[in-house]
Protein backbone atom coordinates (compact mmCIF):
# COMPACT_ATOMS: atom_id res chain seq x y z
CA UNK A 1 0.00 0.00 0.00
CA UNK A 2 2.60 2.53 1.14
CA UNK A 3 6.17 1.99 0.00
CA UNK A 4 9.05 4.30 0.85
CA UNK A 5 12.36 3.45 -0.90
CA UNK A 6 15.26 5.33 0.58
CA UNK A 7 13.39 8.60 0.91
CA UNK A 8 15.24 11.81 1.75
CA UNK A 9 13.79 15.19 2.59
CA UNK A 10 16.43 17.86 2.80
CA UNK A 11 15.77 21.49 3.71
CA UNK A 12 18.50 23.85 2.62
CA UNK A 13 18.91 26.43 5.38
CA UNK A 14 21.47 28.88 4.06
CA UNK A 15 24.85 27.18 4.32
CA UNK A 16 23.84 23.90 5.91
CA UNK A 17 21.21 21.31 5.02
CA UNK A 18 18.64 19.86 7.44
CA UNK A 19 18.02 16.18 6.73
CA UNK A 20 14.43 15.96 7.95
CA UNK A 21 14.24 12.47 6.44
CA UNK A 22 17.55 10.76 6.00
CA UNK A 23 17.08 7.66 3.91
CA UNK A 24 13.80 6.20 5.16
CA UNK A 25 12.59 2.90 3.75
CA UNK A 26 9.21 1.89 5.06
CA UNK A 27 6.57 -0.56 3.90
CA UNK A 28 3.00 -0.45 5.12
CA UNK A 29 0.52 -3.15 4.07
CA UNK A 30 -3.10 -2.50 3.29
CA UNK A 31 -5.16 -2.82 6.47
CA UNK A 32 -2.25 -2.11 8.80
CA UNK A 33 -2.32 0.26 11.76
CA UNK A 34 1.11 1.82 12.13
CA UNK A 35 2.13 4.37 14.73
CA UNK A 36 5.15 6.58 14.21
CA UNK A 37 6.91 7.86 17.30
CA UNK A 38 10.05 9.83 17.94
CA UNK A 39 11.41 12.93 19.63
CA UNK A 40 10.33 16.37 18.55
CA UNK A 41 12.07 17.30 15.30
CA UNK A 42 12.80 13.69 14.42
CA UNK A 43 10.94 13.98 11.09
CA UNK A 44 7.54 12.43 11.90
CA UNK A 45 5.44 15.20 10.35
CA UNK A 46 7.73 15.41 7.35
CA UNK A 47 7.26 11.70 6.81
CA UNK A 48 3.50 12.02 7.19
CA UNK A 49 3.28 14.94 4.76
CA UNK A 50 5.05 12.91 2.12
CA UNK A 51 2.82 9.90 2.76
CA UNK A 52 -0.14 12.28 2.47
CA UNK A 53 1.04 13.64 -0.91
CA UNK A 54 1.18 17.13 0.60
CA UNK A 55 4.92 17.25 0.04
CA UNK A 56 7.43 15.66 -2.30
CA UNK A 57 10.56 13.75 -1.32
CA UNK A 58 13.88 15.38 -2.23
CA UNK A 59 15.26 11.98 -3.27
CA UNK A 60 13.93 8.49 -3.29
CA UNK A 61 10.77 6.86 -4.43
CA UNK A 62 7.32 6.79 -2.90
CA UNK A 63 4.90 4.21 -4.25
CA UNK A 64 1.29 4.53 -3.12
CA UNK A 65 -1.12 1.78 -4.03
CA UNK A 66 1.22 0.53 -6.75
CA UNK A 67 1.79 3.94 -8.32
CA UNK A 68 4.91 6.08 -8.14
CA UNK A 69 3.66 9.38 -6.76
CA UNK A 70 7.05 10.98 -6.06
CA UNK A 71 6.77 13.54 -8.82
CA UNK A 72 3.19 13.90 -9.98
CA UNK A 73 1.53 17.12 -11.05
CA UNK A 74 -0.27 19.11 -8.38
CA UNK A 75 -3.63 18.21 -9.91
CA UNK A 76 -2.97 14.49 -9.75
CA UNK A 77 -1.75 14.82 -6.18
CA UNK A 78 -4.91 16.74 -5.30
CA UNK A 79 -6.95 13.93 -6.79
CA UNK A 80 -5.10 11.30 -4.75
CA UNK A 81 -5.53 13.32 -1.54
CA UNK A 82 -9.18 13.71 -2.34
CA UNK A 83 -10.05 10.07 -3.01
CA UNK A 84 -7.43 7.86 -1.44
CA UNK A 85 -6.32 9.72 1.68
CA UNK A 86 -8.01 11.20 4.71
CA UNK A 87 -6.25 13.59 7.07
CA UNK A 88 -6.68 14.18 10.76
CA UNK A 89 -4.54 17.00 12.13
CA UNK A 90 -3.55 18.02 15.61
CA UNK A 91 -5.22 21.44 15.19
CA UNK A 92 -8.38 19.85 13.64
CA UNK A 93 -8.07 22.19 10.62
CA UNK A 94 -11.77 22.76 10.18
CA UNK A 95 -12.90 25.80 8.21
CA UNK A 96 -14.19 28.18 10.85
CA UNK A 97 -16.98 29.84 8.88
CA UNK A 98 -18.48 26.58 7.60
CA UNK A 99 -20.74 24.54 9.84
CA UNK A 100 -20.03 20.94 10.78
CA UNK A 101 -22.02 19.47 7.91
CA UNK A 102 -20.47 21.78 5.30
CA UNK A 103 -17.00 20.98 6.58
CA UNK A 104 -17.61 17.27 6.21
CA UNK A 105 -19.18 17.70 2.77
CA UNK A 106 -16.17 19.61 1.45
CA UNK A 107 -14.10 16.68 0.09
CA UNK A 108 -17.19 15.46 -1.80
CA UNK A 109 -17.79 18.96 -3.14
CA UNK A 110 -14.37 18.86 -4.78
CA UNK A 111 -15.24 15.47 -6.25
CA UNK A 112 -18.31 16.97 -7.88
CA UNK A 113 -20.76 14.78 -5.95
CA UNK A 114 -24.37 15.95 -6.18
CA UNK A 115 -25.75 17.92 -3.28
CA UNK A 116 -28.24 15.25 -2.13
CA UNK A 117 -25.60 12.53 -2.07
CA UNK A 118 -23.16 14.86 -0.34
CA UNK A 119 -25.65 15.52 2.37
CA UNK A 120 -26.48 11.86 2.85
CA UNK A 121 -22.87 10.72 2.98
CA UNK A 122 -21.79 13.54 5.29
CA UNK A 123 -24.63 12.72 7.68
CA UNK A 124 -23.67 9.06 7.62
CA UNK A 125 -20.07 9.93 8.32
CA UNK A 126 -21.03 12.22 11.19
CA UNK A 127 -23.27 9.51 12.62
CA UNK A 128 -20.23 7.25 12.56
CA UNK A 129 -18.43 9.61 14.96
CA UNK A 130 -21.58 10.17 17.01
CA UNK A 131 -22.16 13.81 16.08
CA UNK A 132 -25.54 13.61 14.34
CA UNK A 133 -26.95 16.26 16.67
CA UNK A 134 -24.37 18.95 15.83
CA UNK A 135 -24.79 19.25 12.06
CA UNK A 136 -25.50 22.98 12.02
CA UNK A 137 -22.96 24.01 14.65
CA UNK A 138 -19.90 26.01 13.77
CA UNK A 139 -16.56 24.43 14.78
CA UNK A 140 -16.08 27.17 17.38
CA UNK A 141 -19.22 25.95 19.15
CA UNK A 142 -17.77 22.48 19.73
CA UNK A 143 -15.33 21.05 22.27
CA UNK A 144 -11.85 20.00 21.14
CA UNK A 145 -12.79 16.32 21.15
CA UNK A 146 -15.91 17.00 19.14
CA UNK A 147 -13.97 19.07 16.61
CA UNK A 148 -11.48 16.26 16.23
CA UNK A 149 -14.36 13.86 15.60
CA UNK A 150 -15.69 16.21 12.94
CA UNK A 151 -12.28 16.15 11.27
CA UNK A 152 -12.32 12.33 11.42
CA UNK A 153 -15.78 12.36 9.85
CA UNK A 154 -14.39 14.60 7.10
CA UNK A 155 -11.47 12.22 6.60
CA UNK A 156 -13.90 9.31 6.33
CA UNK A 157 -16.48 10.80 4.06
CA UNK A 158 -14.81 9.95 0.76
CA UNK A 159 -14.13 6.36 1.89
CA UNK A 160 -10.34 6.67 1.63
CA UNK A 161 -8.09 3.61 1.82
CA UNK A 162 -5.63 5.39 4.10
CA UNK A 163 -6.25 7.63 7.09
CA UNK A 164 -3.33 9.73 8.26
CA UNK A 165 -3.46 11.21 11.73
CA UNK A 166 -0.72 13.60 12.81
CA UNK A 167 -0.88 13.87 16.61
CA UNK A 168 -4.70 13.76 16.65
CA UNK A 169 -4.65 13.61 20.44
CA UNK A 170 -2.09 16.37 20.94
CA UNK A 171 -4.66 18.95 21.96
CA UNK A 172 -6.95 16.64 23.89
CA UNK A 173 -7.03 15.34 27.44
CA UNK A 174 -6.08 11.70 27.91
CA UNK A 175 -9.65 10.41 28.18
CA UNK A 176 -10.83 12.16 24.98
CA UNK A 177 -7.54 11.21 23.33
CA UNK A 178 -8.20 7.57 24.10
CA UNK A 179 -11.68 7.90 22.55
CA UNK A 180 -10.09 9.14 19.36
CA UNK A 181 -7.62 6.24 19.33
CA UNK A 182 -10.49 3.80 19.89
CA UNK A 183 -12.27 5.31 16.93
CA UNK A 184 -9.18 4.93 14.78
CA UNK A 185 -8.83 1.28 15.86
CA UNK A 186 -12.44 0.65 14.90
CA UNK A 187 -11.85 2.22 11.49
CA UNK A 188 -8.80 0.01 11.10
CA UNK A 189 -10.91 -3.06 11.84
CA UNK A 190 -13.30 -1.94 9.11
CA UNK A 191 -10.42 -2.09 6.66
CA UNK A 192 -8.88 1.38 6.59
CA UNK A 193 -5.11 1.54 6.63
CA UNK A 194 -4.11 3.88 9.43
CA UNK A 195 -0.92 5.80 10.09
CA UNK A 196 -0.81 7.55 13.46
CA UNK A 197 1.82 9.95 14.71
CA UNK A 198 2.03 10.44 18.41
CA UNK A 199 4.61 10.96 21.09
CA UNK A 200 2.52 9.30 23.75
CA UNK A 201 3.93 5.80 24.01
CA UNK A 202 0.80 4.42 25.70
CA UNK A 203 -1.24 5.42 22.65
CA UNK A 204 1.39 4.31 20.15
CA UNK A 205 1.47 0.78 21.50
CA UNK A 206 -2.22 0.36 20.69
CA UNK A 207 -1.35 0.23 17.00
CA UNK A 208 -0.47 -3.04 15.32
CA UNK A 209 3.05 -1.86 14.58
CA UNK A 210 5.23 0.93 15.92
CA UNK A 211 7.99 2.73 14.01
CA UNK A 212 10.48 4.92 15.84
CA UNK A 213 12.18 7.79 14.06
CA UNK A 214 15.25 9.63 15.26
CA UNK A 215 17.02 12.37 13.33
CA UNK A 216 15.24 11.42 10.15
CA UNK A 217 16.11 7.70 10.36
CA UNK A 218 14.07 4.68 11.39
CA UNK A 219 15.76 3.36 14.48
CA UNK A 220 13.27 0.75 15.69
CA UNK A 221 10.25 -1.16 14.41
CA UNK A 222 8.20 -3.53 16.50
CA UNK A 223 4.99 -5.48 16.01
CA UNK A 224 2.62 -5.34 18.95
CA UNK A 225 1.50 -8.68 20.33
CA UNK A 226 -1.45 -7.22 22.18
CA UNK A 227 -2.92 -5.61 19.10
CA UNK A 228 -5.39 -8.40 18.61
CA UNK A 229 -6.75 -8.02 22.12
CA UNK A 230 -8.97 -5.06 21.25
Amino acid sequence: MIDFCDVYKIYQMGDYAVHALDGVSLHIEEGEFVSIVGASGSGKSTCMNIIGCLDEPSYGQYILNGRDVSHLSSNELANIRNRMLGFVFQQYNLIAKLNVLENVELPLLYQGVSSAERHARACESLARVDLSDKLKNLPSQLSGGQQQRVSIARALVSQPKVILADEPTGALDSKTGQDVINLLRQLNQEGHTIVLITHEENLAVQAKRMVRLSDGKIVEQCVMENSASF
Partner: protein
Amino acid sequence: MKLLQSLIMALKSILANKLRSFLTMLGIIIGVAAVIILVGLVGGFSNNITSSFARLGANTINVMIMRGKTVTVKDIEGFALEHGEFFSAYTPNVSMGNATIKNRTDSLTTNVSGVNELAEQIDSIELAAGRFICYLDCESQRRVCVIGSYIAKELAVGLGDSIRINGYHFDVIGIKEQKDGGTASSADDVVYLPYTTTARLGRSQVSNYKLLVEDLNKINEASDILSDYLVEATGSENNFRIISAQAMTDTVNELTGTLSLVLVGIAGISLLVGGIGIMNIMIVSVTERTREIGIRKSIGAKQRDIMSQFLIEAIVTSALGGMLGIAVGAGLSVPLGKLMGLTAAVSPTAVSIAFGVSAGIGIIFGYFPALRAARLNPIDALRYE
Protein backbone atom coordinates in the same frame (compact mmCIF):
# COMPACT_ATOMS: atom_id res chain seq x y z
CA MET B 1 -16.56 21.52 -8.63
CA LYS B 2 -19.66 23.03 -10.10
CA LEU B 3 -20.04 26.69 -10.97
CA LEU B 4 -23.14 27.08 -8.84
CA GLN B 5 -21.24 25.85 -5.78
CA SER B 6 -18.48 28.36 -6.44
CA LEU B 7 -21.06 31.13 -6.80
CA ILE B 8 -22.72 30.23 -3.52
CA MET B 9 -19.33 30.07 -1.84
CA ALA B 10 -18.37 33.49 -3.23
CA LEU B 11 -21.65 35.08 -2.12
CA LYS B 12 -21.23 33.62 1.36
CA SER B 13 -17.78 35.01 1.74
CA ILE B 14 -18.86 38.42 0.41
CA LEU B 15 -21.76 38.50 2.86
CA ALA B 16 -19.48 37.43 5.70
CA ASN B 17 -17.65 40.75 5.35
CA LYS B 18 -20.47 43.11 4.44
CA LEU B 19 -18.83 46.42 5.26
CA ARG B 20 -15.55 45.51 3.67
CA SER B 21 -17.23 44.16 0.55
CA PHE B 22 -19.30 47.32 0.25
CA LEU B 23 -16.27 49.56 0.59
CA THR B 24 -14.48 47.44 -1.99
CA MET B 25 -17.40 47.82 -4.36
CA LEU B 26 -17.66 51.55 -3.80
CA GLY B 27 -15.10 52.40 -6.47
CA ILE B 28 -16.98 50.30 -9.00
CA ILE B 29 -20.35 51.67 -7.89
CA ILE B 30 -19.20 55.26 -8.30
CA GLY B 31 -17.47 54.55 -11.60
CA VAL B 32 -20.43 52.77 -13.16
CA ALA B 33 -22.96 55.29 -11.84
CA ALA B 34 -20.80 58.13 -13.16
CA VAL B 35 -20.58 56.57 -16.62
CA ILE B 36 -24.33 56.10 -16.82
CA ILE B 37 -25.20 59.54 -15.47
CA LEU B 38 -22.67 61.34 -17.67
CA VAL B 39 -23.70 59.52 -20.83
CA GLY B 40 -27.35 60.26 -20.00
CA LEU B 41 -26.74 63.95 -19.35
CA VAL B 42 -24.57 64.47 -22.43
CA GLY B 43 -27.21 62.68 -24.49
CA GLY B 44 -29.92 64.95 -23.09
CA PHE B 45 -27.77 68.00 -23.73
CA SER B 46 -27.10 67.03 -27.32
CA ASN B 47 -30.79 66.28 -27.93
CA ASN B 48 -31.63 69.72 -26.59
CA ILE B 49 -29.27 71.43 -28.97
CA THR B 50 -30.24 69.32 -31.94
CA SER B 51 -33.91 70.05 -31.43
CA SER B 52 -33.30 73.76 -31.09
CA PHE B 53 -31.41 73.68 -34.39
CA ALA B 54 -34.21 71.76 -35.97
CA ARG B 55 -36.47 74.63 -34.95
CA LEU B 56 -34.13 76.99 -36.76
CA GLY B 57 -34.97 75.08 -39.87
CA ALA B 58 -33.21 71.87 -40.51
CA ASN B 59 -33.49 72.18 -44.25
CA THR B 60 -32.23 75.68 -44.84
CA ILE B 61 -28.74 76.79 -45.73
CA ASN B 62 -27.52 80.22 -44.70
CA VAL B 63 -24.88 81.98 -46.77
CA MET B 64 -22.85 84.93 -45.65
CA ILE B 65 -20.69 86.69 -48.22
CA MET B 66 -18.08 88.78 -46.49
CA ARG B 67 -15.72 90.07 -49.18
CA GLY B 68 -14.30 89.33 -52.61
CA LYS B 69 -15.97 89.84 -56.00
CA THR B 70 -19.55 91.02 -55.73
CA VAL B 71 -22.29 88.46 -55.95
CA THR B 72 -25.67 89.98 -56.76
CA VAL B 73 -29.13 88.82 -55.87
CA LYS B 74 -29.59 87.95 -59.54
CA ASP B 75 -26.49 85.74 -59.44
CA ILE B 76 -27.86 83.77 -56.51
CA GLU B 77 -31.27 83.56 -58.14
CA GLY B 78 -29.66 82.24 -61.32
CA PHE B 79 -27.67 79.69 -59.33
CA ALA B 80 -30.73 78.51 -57.39
CA LEU B 81 -32.73 78.10 -60.57
CA GLU B 82 -29.93 76.23 -62.31
CA HIS B 83 -29.77 73.76 -59.41
CA GLY B 84 -33.51 73.46 -58.97
CA GLU B 85 -33.19 69.80 -58.02
CA PHE B 86 -31.52 70.92 -54.77
CA PHE B 87 -32.80 74.40 -54.07
CA SER B 88 -36.51 75.03 -54.11
CA ALA B 89 -36.40 78.62 -52.92
CA TYR B 90 -33.99 81.38 -51.92
CA THR B 91 -34.26 84.72 -50.20
CA PRO B 92 -31.83 87.50 -49.49
CA ASN B 93 -31.59 88.12 -45.78
CA VAL B 94 -30.69 91.67 -44.96
CA SER B 95 -30.50 92.25 -41.25
CA MET B 96 -31.04 95.66 -39.76
CA GLY B 97 -29.73 94.32 -36.51
CA ASN B 98 -31.68 95.46 -33.51
CA ALA B 99 -34.04 98.13 -34.70
CA THR B 100 -36.37 100.28 -32.65
CA ILE B 101 -40.04 99.72 -33.40
CA LYS B 102 -42.50 102.37 -32.31
CA ASN B 103 -46.20 102.96 -32.56
CA ARG B 104 -47.39 106.26 -31.16
CA THR B 105 -46.26 105.82 -27.61
CA ASP B 106 -44.72 102.41 -27.01
CA SER B 107 -41.45 101.16 -28.37
CA LEU B 108 -39.30 98.06 -28.31
CA THR B 109 -36.23 96.72 -30.04
CA THR B 110 -36.25 93.62 -32.11
CA ASN B 111 -34.51 91.83 -34.91
CA VAL B 112 -35.64 93.14 -38.28
CA SER B 113 -34.77 91.30 -41.44
CA GLY B 114 -35.29 92.12 -45.07
CA VAL B 115 -36.45 89.20 -47.19
CA ASN B 116 -38.18 88.49 -50.48
CA GLU B 117 -41.57 86.88 -51.10
CA LEU B 118 -40.12 83.36 -50.88
CA ALA B 119 -39.21 83.72 -47.19
CA GLU B 120 -42.80 82.78 -46.41
CA GLN B 121 -42.10 79.32 -47.80
CA ILE B 122 -38.55 79.06 -46.52
CA ASP B 123 -39.36 79.92 -42.90
CA SER B 124 -42.77 78.20 -43.10
CA ILE B 125 -44.47 81.38 -42.08
CA GLU B 126 -48.19 81.25 -41.51
CA LEU B 127 -50.19 84.42 -41.29
CA ALA B 128 -52.96 85.15 -38.87
CA ALA B 129 -54.05 88.16 -40.85
CA GLY B 130 -53.15 90.03 -44.02
CA ARG B 131 -50.59 88.89 -46.54
CA PHE B 132 -46.87 88.33 -46.76
CA ILE B 133 -44.37 90.53 -48.62
CA CYS B 134 -44.84 90.11 -52.39
CA TYR B 135 -42.64 90.44 -55.42
CA LEU B 136 -43.85 93.94 -56.16
CA ASP B 137 -43.13 95.09 -52.61
CA CYS B 138 -39.50 94.24 -53.26
CA GLU B 139 -39.41 95.68 -56.76
CA SER B 140 -40.80 99.01 -55.64
CA GLN B 141 -39.05 99.12 -52.29
CA ARG B 142 -42.34 99.57 -50.51
CA ARG B 143 -42.46 100.56 -46.86
CA VAL B 144 -44.51 97.62 -45.72
CA CYS B 145 -43.89 95.05 -43.00
CA VAL B 146 -45.07 91.74 -41.59
CA ILE B 147 -44.85 91.50 -37.79
CA GLY B 148 -44.82 88.65 -35.29
CA SER B 149 -47.63 88.17 -32.78
CA TYR B 150 -45.46 89.31 -29.90
CA ILE B 151 -44.87 92.71 -31.55
CA ALA B 152 -48.53 93.06 -32.43
CA LYS B 153 -49.53 92.40 -28.86
CA GLU B 154 -46.86 94.50 -27.16
CA LEU B 155 -47.36 97.56 -29.34
CA ALA B 156 -51.08 97.00 -29.76
CA VAL B 157 -50.96 97.36 -33.52
CA GLY B 158 -53.22 95.68 -36.05
CA LEU B 159 -53.46 95.17 -39.76
CA GLY B 160 -53.25 98.46 -41.71
CA ASP B 161 -51.75 100.38 -38.78
CA SER B 162 -48.58 102.27 -39.26
CA ILE B 163 -45.45 101.77 -37.17
CA ARG B 164 -42.05 103.36 -37.18
CA ILE B 165 -38.91 101.34 -37.63
CA ASN B 166 -35.78 103.28 -36.79
CA GLY B 167 -37.82 106.37 -37.48
CA TYR B 168 -39.26 105.34 -40.88
CA HIS B 169 -42.93 104.76 -41.39
CA PHE B 170 -44.10 101.29 -42.37
CA ASP B 171 -47.54 99.87 -42.98
CA VAL B 172 -48.39 96.59 -41.34
CA ILE B 173 -49.61 94.34 -44.13
CA GLY B 174 -49.50 91.01 -42.31
CA ILE B 175 -49.41 89.52 -38.83
CA LYS B 176 -47.76 86.19 -38.25
CA GLU B 177 -49.59 83.45 -36.48
CA GLN B 178 -48.30 82.77 -33.02
CA LYS B 179 -45.88 79.89 -33.21
CA ASP B 180 -43.38 80.01 -30.40
CA GLY B 181 -45.30 80.95 -27.28
CA GLY B 182 -45.54 84.63 -28.24
CA THR B 183 -42.70 85.68 -25.96
CA ALA B 184 -39.76 88.05 -26.40
CA SER B 185 -36.76 86.77 -28.45
CA SER B 186 -38.86 83.95 -29.80
CA ALA B 187 -39.93 83.25 -33.37
CA ASP B 188 -42.88 85.57 -32.66
CA ASP B 189 -40.62 88.51 -31.89
CA VAL B 190 -39.73 89.34 -35.52
CA VAL B 191 -40.34 91.91 -38.22
CA TYR B 192 -40.03 91.16 -41.95
CA LEU B 193 -39.50 93.93 -44.55
CA PRO B 194 -38.88 93.79 -48.30
CA TYR B 195 -35.13 93.25 -48.60
CA THR B 196 -34.73 96.09 -51.08
CA THR B 197 -36.22 98.54 -48.63
CA THR B 198 -34.01 97.27 -45.83
CA ALA B 199 -30.91 97.49 -47.96
CA ARG B 200 -31.62 101.02 -49.00
CA LEU B 201 -32.49 102.31 -45.56
CA GLY B 202 -29.45 100.62 -44.09
CA ARG B 203 -27.29 101.74 -47.03
CA SER B 204 -26.04 98.21 -47.14
CA GLN B 205 -25.40 95.61 -49.82
CA VAL B 206 -27.20 92.31 -49.86
CA SER B 207 -24.68 89.85 -48.48
CA ASN B 208 -26.70 87.15 -46.69
CA TYR B 209 -28.97 84.59 -48.27
CA LYS B 210 -31.10 81.72 -47.12
CA LEU B 211 -31.75 78.78 -49.39
CA LEU B 212 -34.33 76.05 -48.93
CA VAL B 213 -33.44 72.42 -49.59
CA GLU B 214 -36.61 70.33 -49.56
CA ASP B 215 -34.85 67.00 -49.34
CA LEU B 216 -32.97 66.76 -46.02
CA ASN B 217 -30.78 63.97 -47.39
CA LYS B 218 -29.43 66.28 -50.06
CA ILE B 219 -28.48 69.05 -47.70
CA ASN B 220 -24.79 68.20 -47.50
CA GLU B 221 -24.50 67.78 -51.25
CA ALA B 222 -26.35 71.05 -51.77
CA SER B 223 -23.92 72.79 -49.40
CA ASP B 224 -21.01 71.44 -51.43
CA ILE B 225 -22.44 72.62 -54.74
CA LEU B 226 -23.18 76.03 -53.28
CA SER B 227 -19.70 76.21 -51.84
CA ASP B 228 -18.10 75.33 -55.20
CA TYR B 229 -20.16 77.99 -56.90
CA LEU B 230 -19.25 80.66 -54.35
CA VAL B 231 -15.56 79.86 -54.48
CA GLU B 232 -15.68 80.69 -58.16
CA ALA B 233 -18.01 83.65 -57.82
CA THR B 234 -16.23 85.38 -54.95
CA GLY B 235 -12.71 84.27 -55.77
CA SER B 236 -11.83 82.36 -52.60
CA GLU B 237 -13.31 80.03 -50.04
CA ASN B 238 -12.36 82.56 -47.38
CA ASN B 239 -14.73 85.15 -48.78
CA PHE B 240 -17.96 83.53 -47.63
CA ARG B 241 -19.39 81.24 -45.03
CA ILE B 242 -22.08 78.61 -45.36
CA ILE B 243 -24.05 77.65 -42.27
CA SER B 244 -26.65 74.94 -42.25
CA ALA B 245 -28.53 73.53 -39.29
CA GLN B 246 -27.27 70.15 -40.39
CA ALA B 247 -23.64 71.30 -40.30
CA MET B 248 -24.17 72.91 -36.90
CA THR B 249 -25.80 69.76 -35.62
CA ASP B 250 -22.85 67.77 -36.92
CA THR B 251 -20.46 70.10 -35.13
CA VAL B 252 -22.42 69.88 -31.92
CA ASN B 253 -22.61 66.11 -32.16
CA GLU B 254 -18.88 65.98 -32.69
CA LEU B 255 -18.43 68.25 -29.69
CA THR B 256 -20.72 66.29 -27.41
CA GLY B 257 -19.08 63.09 -28.65
CA THR B 258 -15.69 64.38 -27.57
CA LEU B 259 -17.20 65.67 -24.35
CA SER B 260 -18.72 62.32 -23.47
CA LEU B 261 -15.46 60.57 -24.33
CA VAL B 262 -13.59 62.82 -21.91
CA LEU B 263 -16.21 62.41 -19.19
CA VAL B 264 -16.42 58.66 -19.66
CA GLY B 265 -12.63 58.59 -19.58
CA ILE B 266 -12.69 60.28 -16.20
CA ALA B 267 -15.32 57.85 -14.99
CA GLY B 268 -13.16 55.07 -16.40
CA ILE B 269 -10.32 56.18 -14.17
CA SER B 270 -12.65 55.77 -11.22
CA LEU B 271 -13.43 52.25 -12.46
CA LEU B 272 -9.72 51.54 -12.68
CA VAL B 273 -9.21 52.76 -9.13
CA GLY B 274 -12.13 50.57 -8.08
CA GLY B 275 -10.47 47.61 -9.78
CA ILE B 276 -7.24 48.22 -7.94
CA GLY B 277 -9.27 48.34 -4.72
CA ILE B 278 -10.67 44.92 -5.55
CA MET B 279 -7.22 43.56 -6.26
CA ASN B 280 -5.96 44.93 -2.98
CA ILE B 281 -8.78 43.40 -0.98
CA MET B 282 -8.44 40.10 -2.78
CA ILE B 283 -4.74 39.96 -1.94
CA VAL B 284 -5.53 40.69 1.70
CA SER B 285 -8.23 38.06 1.60
CA VAL B 286 -5.89 35.46 0.09
CA THR B 287 -3.29 36.18 2.77
CA GLU B 288 -5.90 36.05 5.51
CA ARG B 289 -7.23 32.78 4.25
CA THR B 290 -3.93 31.08 3.54
CA ARG B 291 -4.66 28.46 6.16
CA GLU B 292 -8.11 27.85 4.75
CA ILE B 293 -6.54 27.40 1.32
CA GLY B 294 -4.13 24.89 2.83
CA ILE B 295 -7.00 22.95 4.41
CA ARG B 296 -8.95 22.93 1.18
CA LYS B 297 -5.91 21.72 -0.72
CA SER B 298 -5.18 19.00 1.84
CA ILE B 299 -8.64 17.52 1.33
CA GLY B 300 -8.37 17.59 -2.44
CA ALA B 301 -9.04 21.05 -3.87
CA LYS B 302 -7.20 21.45 -7.15
CA GLN B 303 -5.45 24.64 -8.26
CA ARG B 304 -8.36 25.24 -10.57
CA ASP B 305 -10.85 24.99 -7.67
CA ILE B 306 -9.00 27.54 -5.56
CA MET B 307 -8.45 29.75 -8.59
CA SER B 308 -12.13 29.77 -9.49
CA GLN B 309 -13.15 30.33 -5.88
CA PHE B 310 -11.19 33.56 -5.63
CA LEU B 311 -11.77 34.66 -9.20
CA ILE B 312 -15.50 34.18 -8.89
CA GLU B 313 -15.42 36.06 -5.62
CA ALA B 314 -13.71 38.98 -7.36
CA ILE B 315 -16.08 38.87 -10.31
CA VAL B 316 -19.14 38.63 -8.09
CA THR B 317 -17.87 41.54 -5.98
CA SER B 318 -17.34 43.79 -8.97
CA ALA B 319 -20.45 42.63 -10.80
CA LEU B 320 -22.52 43.33 -7.67
CA GLY B 321 -20.82 46.72 -7.51
CA GLY B 322 -21.66 47.17 -11.18
CA MET B 323 -25.32 46.36 -10.60
CA LEU B 324 -25.54 48.72 -7.62
CA GLY B 325 -23.81 51.34 -9.77
CA ILE B 326 -26.34 50.84 -12.54
CA ALA B 327 -29.17 51.20 -10.06
CA VAL B 328 -27.68 54.39 -8.62
CA GLY B 329 -26.87 55.76 -12.08
CA ALA B 330 -30.29 54.96 -13.52
CA GLY B 331 -31.99 56.35 -10.43
CA LEU B 332 -30.04 59.62 -10.48
CA SER B 333 -29.85 60.32 -14.24
CA VAL B 334 -33.37 61.61 -14.71
CA PRO B 335 -33.68 63.78 -11.57
CA LEU B 336 -30.20 65.22 -12.14
CA GLY B 337 -31.15 65.95 -15.75
CA LYS B 338 -34.30 67.71 -14.57
CA LEU B 339 -32.21 69.79 -12.22
CA MET B 340 -30.12 70.91 -15.16
CA GLY B 341 -33.09 71.37 -17.46
CA LEU B 342 -32.25 68.38 -19.62
CA THR B 343 -34.17 65.26 -20.47
CA ALA B 344 -31.54 62.67 -19.63
CA ALA B 345 -32.22 59.12 -20.71
CA VAL B 346 -30.59 55.95 -19.37
CA SER B 347 -28.80 54.54 -22.37
CA PRO B 348 -29.00 50.73 -22.58
CA THR B 349 -25.62 50.72 -24.34
CA ALA B 350 -24.03 52.59 -21.46
CA VAL B 351 -25.64 50.20 -18.98
CA SER B 352 -24.43 47.08 -20.75
CA ILE B 353 -20.95 48.48 -21.35
CA ALA B 354 -20.67 49.60 -17.73
CA PHE B 355 -21.78 46.19 -16.51
CA GLY B 356 -19.42 44.39 -18.87
CA VAL B 357 -16.53 46.61 -17.84
CA SER B 358 -17.17 46.09 -14.14
CA ALA B 359 -17.32 42.31 -14.53
CA GLY B 360 -14.20 42.50 -16.68
CA ILE B 361 -12.44 44.47 -13.96
CA GLY B 362 -13.25 41.65 -11.56
CA ILE B 363 -11.63 39.16 -13.92
CA ILE B 364 -8.55 41.27 -14.61
CA PHE B 365 -7.88 42.45 -11.09
CA GLY B 366 -9.03 39.25 -9.45
CA TYR B 367 -6.83 37.07 -11.64
CA PHE B 368 -3.52 37.85 -9.99
CA PRO B 369 -4.62 37.29 -6.37
CA ALA B 370 -6.53 34.17 -7.40
CA LEU B 371 -3.48 32.78 -9.15
CA ARG B 372 -1.43 33.52 -6.08
CA ALA B 373 -3.89 31.60 -3.93
CA ALA B 374 -4.03 28.68 -6.34
CA ARG B 375 -0.26 28.32 -6.51
CA LEU B 376 0.24 28.17 -2.74
CA ASN B 377 2.05 25.07 -1.64
CA PRO B 378 -0.36 23.05 0.56
CA ILE B 379 2.22 22.44 3.28
CA ASP B 380 3.27 26.08 3.52
CA ALA B 381 -0.36 27.16 3.49
CA LEU B 382 -1.26 24.72 6.28
CA ARG B 383 1.62 25.92 8.43
CA TYR B 384 0.71 29.58 7.92
CA GLU B 385 -0.28 31.28 11.17
